[in-house]
């Protein structure tokens, strides 16, 4: 009987709590909105696997789009207003920001044995197990790039969606654009579902003025990530 009473009271409390409005201080919402409005803009949520992979695509597409600005040879397929960037192992990646994307041969492998290949097969970054690292930044923005090496997954921070940075187009034509990737060990964050070791990657890229078709990532996989690291995006047909 006591349990029934408790259950009943528990339900009553729950019900009353849900039914009560949260009384906020006067002007609270407005002040909060103002504060939110002052935060630097972030275009891409980065929380779940699909979003995480979308960020891989976003980073890569930043590269592709930027390249497209320079060369005009790339385009993404657009369906229902959404650009399907590619298909990773865990699902389709969408990016509603892209509207025009072609996947022509834009590929290459430069330096340190690591490479990103972008062609009809999609986008693939390959990184042998190396100890060389490069740490650069992309203008005022940063990439976030998630990657996987077997069981090992990691990420790159990208606080700003460079594709959305109008100034970047200007930079490409005037001063070029460069990218390198560094992978380094990092502590798992709260709530992580990563398996294996956690690595973080920093990225920077370089496309010279008049760039027409070669891209490169340089990866550093310091330990326990034997074998190739790769990202792969299936082609858009």
């Amino acid at each position: 009987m006591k349990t029934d009473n408790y259950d009943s009271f528990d339900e009553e409390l729950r019900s009353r709590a849900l039914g009560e409005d949260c009384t906020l201080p006067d002007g609270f919402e407005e002040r909060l909105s103002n504060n939110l409005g002052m935060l630097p803009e972030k275009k891409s949520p980065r929380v779940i696997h699909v979003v995480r992979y979308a960020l891989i695509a976003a980073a890569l597409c930043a590269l592709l789009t930027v390249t497209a600005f320079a060369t005009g040879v790339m385009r993404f397929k657009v369906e229902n207003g959404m650009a399907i960037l590619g298909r990773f192992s865990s699902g389709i990646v969408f990016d509603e920001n892209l509207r025009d994307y072609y996947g022509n041969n834009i590929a290459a492998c430069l330096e340190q044995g690591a490479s990103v290949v972008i062609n009809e097969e999609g986008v693939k970054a390959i990184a042998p197990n190396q100890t060389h690292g490069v740490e650069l930044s992309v203008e005022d923005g940063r990439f976030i790039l998630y990657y996987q090496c077997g069981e090992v997954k990691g990420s790159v921070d990208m606080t700003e969606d460079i594709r959305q940075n109008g100034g970047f187009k200007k930079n490409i034509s005037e001063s070029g654009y460069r990218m390198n990737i560094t992978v380094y060990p990092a502590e798992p964050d709260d709530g992580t579902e990563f398996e294996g070791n956690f690595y973080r990657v920093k990225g920077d890229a370089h496309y010279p003025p008049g760039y027409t078709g070669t891209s490169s990532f340089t990866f550093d996989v310091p330990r326990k990530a034997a074998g190739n690291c790769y990202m792969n995006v299936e082609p858009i047909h």
Partner: protein
Amino acid sequence: MFRAARSLLDSDADAEDAVSKAVLNAWKSSSRLRDAKKVRAWLIKIAVNSAYEIRRKNQKVVYFDEIPDVQLPDEHRYDDLWEAVNALPEDRRTAVTLYYYDGLSVEEIASILSLPEGTVKSRLSRARDQLRQMLKEDSGHENR
């Protein structure tokens, strides 16, 4: 977030500061969130931590004339549950707020408050007993 912060702080203004700070912190550390399903608990945890931080700062200076009068439960009529919850001791108040108002599980609350789950259950149980008494008295007032 506001309620969670308010359950730990003495004023709406401080709770608002905690929420503002939490929003900023959440924004800065958004890349750390790996599971969207946990976003609610994650944000509340940030809010709670912000509230703790503000409380630590506030505790440096306490003016006697700012210490509120303590009202005993049996001398007060509670117009709503939130008011009754706010009359609970802090540890129970926070647990009740997170459990009933924010809809978090015992496990999530334990994680947020860095407590064993058994402690959270115990606090909730005691809070329920106390609330039952307080609200019963409230009801008694209404029936008079």
